[in-house]
């Protein structure tokens, strides 16, 4: 059984609690143990790096140092948390002076960042450690006939880790195929959801959400699958506002990929946090799931 240090991040504590629940449950069912980091702190989110780089690096370094103590690689379900931690680990390995500076501060907490910890996004663990073949073997309730738009968002594959394709990755599609659903091809799968622009420049962000939803609808998607609480919020919660702003009438269900996998593994809906959506689950999906 593969074990990881789990960094939920603040979104999953509240707003994205369904992502948290479904992550833990599906991972468990697939033979992956997620051990929550003790005394973790904020990752700095999307903005802190632009305000105070040193403190932002320190925040992430502290989480990484805690993870290092466990001897496990750290995994984050939130794309922003993942990107910040991965980026920090990579940067501090190169900038030894900065690492020393930060370690000086971490000493207060009896912590030290050595650069030995690996950082992974949860979807990476599902795609690589389990892989589509094994996932397919474990699926008991294939989501046949369901057209899923895999929404990667902008952060999962960046910065490039190895030689993987960062322009047109396919691992999300492969995972969707593995659970019996049909991945749809739509050109905007890698585009930004608007992120925190929704606060500072609402119209621009809503326009971006509109384009994304339109692209998914054009591809006849039943549901959009996300792998980030920020993407989920922008696509789901702001859908109504998009409709008001642009006179559209979108009602596209948005779900975490962990929820869809959970359904295909016949995990009870409640355990996956289903039932708290703003946009009701698609009837087509409701028909194929059991339990």
């Amino acid at each position, binding site marked *: 059984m593969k074990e990881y240090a789990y960094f939920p991040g603040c979104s999953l504590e509240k707003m994205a609690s369904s992502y948290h629940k479904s992550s833990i449950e599906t991972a468990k069912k697939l033979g992956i143990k997620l051990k929550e980091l003790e005394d973790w702190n904020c990752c700095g989110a999307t903005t802190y790096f632009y305000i105070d780089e040193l403190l932002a690096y320190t925040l992430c370094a502290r989480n990484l140092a805690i993870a290092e103590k466990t001897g496990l690689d750290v995994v984050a379900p939130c794309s922003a948390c993942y990107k910040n931690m991965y980026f920090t680990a990579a940067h501090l390995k190169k900038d030894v002076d900065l690492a020393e500076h930060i370690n000086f501060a971490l000493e207060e907490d009896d912590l030290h960042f050595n650069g030995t910890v690996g950082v992974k996004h949860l979807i990476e663990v599902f795609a690589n450690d389990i892989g589509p073949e094994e996932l397919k073997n474990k699926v008991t309730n294939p989501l046949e006939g369901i057209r899923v738009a895999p929404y990667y968002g902008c952060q999962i594959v960046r910065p490039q880790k190895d030689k993987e394709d960062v*322009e*047109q990755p396919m691992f999300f599609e492969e995972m969707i195929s593995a659970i019996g659903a049909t991945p749809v*091809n*739509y*050109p*905007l799968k890698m585009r930004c959801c608007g992120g925190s622009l929704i606060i500072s420049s609402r119209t621009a962000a809503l326009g971006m959400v509109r*384009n994304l939803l339109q*692209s998914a609808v054009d591809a006849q998607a039943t549901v959009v699958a996300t792998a980030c609480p920020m993407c989920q919020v922008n696509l789901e919660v702001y859908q109504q506002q998009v409709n008001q702003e642009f006179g559209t009438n979108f009602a596209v269900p948005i779900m975490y990929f962990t929820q869809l996998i959970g359904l295909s593994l016949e995990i009870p809906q409640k355990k996956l946090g289903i039932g708290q959506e703003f946009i009701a689950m698609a009837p087509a999906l409701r028909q194929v799931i059991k339990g």
Partner: protein
Amino acid sequence: MDKKEKIGVYVCHCGTNIAGVVNVGEVSTWAAENLKNDGVVIARDYKFMCSSLGQELIQKDIKEQGLTRVVVAACSPHLHEATFRNACKGGGLNPYLCELVSIREQDSWVHTDKIAATEKAKAILSGGVSRVIHHEPLEPLHVPIHPATLVVGGGIAGIQAALEIANAGFPVYLVEREPSIGGHMAQFDKTFPTLDCSACILTPKMVDAGNHPNITLLTYSEVEKVDGYVGNFVATIRKRARSVNEADCTGCGICWEKCPKKVVDNVFEAGMGYRKAVYVSFPQAVPKYPVIDRENCTYYIKGTCKACEKFCPTNAINFAQEDEILNVQVGNIILATGYDLFDSRRITQYGYGRLANVFTSLEFERMSNAAGPTGGNIVLRDGKTVPKVVGIVHCVGSRDKNYNEYCSAICCMQSLKFAHLVEERTGAEVYNFYIDIRTPGKGYEEFYHRLLEEGTHFIRGKVAEISDAARLPAEEGKLIMQVEDTLTANQLRVPVDMVILSAGLEPRHDAKEVANRFGISCSADGWLIERHPKLDPVATVTEGIYIAGCVQGPKDIPNSVAQGAAAAARILGKIQQKEVALEPIRATIHEEQCSGCRICNNMCPFNAILFHEDKMVSEVNPALCQGCGTCVAACPAGAISGTGFSNEQILSQINGLLLLNIPKKEVVA
């Protein structure tokens, strides 16, 4: 040492080049006093040792003083080693008993501290003296040259080379992997910048090669193995079964007319068109005999059909034909195996293979060719719609650290040609997206100007993405090319109907294996390495193996032809000499010390080491050995020695360089 050597030491001033920094007088006096124990009997310094007077000085001393070894401290051995060896030879001393140590390039030219430079010169000289004691008289190896030549690859470079040699009256084996010679050039429509028809200028040469009495054409064949060495190679060639008896076939074409099986032609038509299961690559193919593609032929799959056999008027079809293995003896080899086109699928953001109307350059070549799948009509993938706007992306897979860092050399001109053809044939608006326009060739820049005047748009920027996600009504149904125009610093979204990716050139997928098979090497980016990038571009480090055309690096047709001819000229020179002299720097395995452990067996990339199972010992073939010495250093039993760079020579040189050869009291701090 049984007898004491008599060593002469000569320190060169090289005008002020050496003497300006190194106190040469002090060095020669020092050597005369301190290197006596090593056998130095005379030490002189002279203005220019390489002059005829300097050389005569050495020769006189050899004769009068009975010198048995000579050490010259002057410039780099790469400059004058041959000079001083010849001087010794002239004086009656074996040339390999002379050692040239560099106190110019490695000392006076790179140091400013005169005292330190003089001390270093002493150490370098001392190293040379210690080394030369262990030199042995050597004789160069002479091997005869077989007059036949093997040319691998029947593209334009290979054809040219074969014709040059054959016209000079010597036999050539021209081996080609595909059923017909012609190579990539046969696929092209027009050639830049003159726009003459590619087939029109190539076909006569193909026919010449096919009919030449001195050329043995082996198409649908591959070289599997090469044994031997310069002057005396034996190549093993597999001639794949065509399933057609060449002696009976007239090339009438009835078989492929009657064949019921249509196959997508991924080679010649770049996947744009079809051929039959029995086919010739293209109508002007040389030789004219078809081949049966056994993977797709109904008879080979199901056991029935034989339509071709039934209709063949000369009974030339032979389903039972087997591969033939030929062994040919040749003196020299030319590799002209060409290039592969960069696979545009690798740049996923350009959407090739995902977005229908994104074409590769080779697809476009076929499309614009009157004999091609669309009859020369430039249309979208649906086969009928004529594009109104066409975007051409330059540098696809080239000048890009993610793929290939090098410039593919031909894509700019090719793209300009495409732009011209599109405008001429469809009147469409054409956008060229380029990084830089590179037109270094006769008439190339003029062609670029012609395009500018024709109204082609040139946008300087690397295309970021090609997508079908429309934002504006005008973008609906189009391909949108996202690019920053770096001259105006504007982000542009250019909607087009058709995109042509001007894909770069890559080394053949099997270039590395081919290089290994022929005992030569690939550079880091995979092209075969020439002996010298400027002064010896068609020879390789392996004697007798030459390269021509794109196998050496991306180049256009005129350059490929020039290299083909150049390689041929080099070989003709060798054939005329009838024999070749090889440096006697070789490894030897001493049989009585060899334990047959086989450690050395994987050390030699030239396959010069053989293992004798019967005697359980390994042996070096001196004609194949290139003298690198890797096996000498690797042998755990110390059973391999290397002439010219023996352990004794190097270990003594270390002693000398560290001045350990000088009695302790005399070492001056």
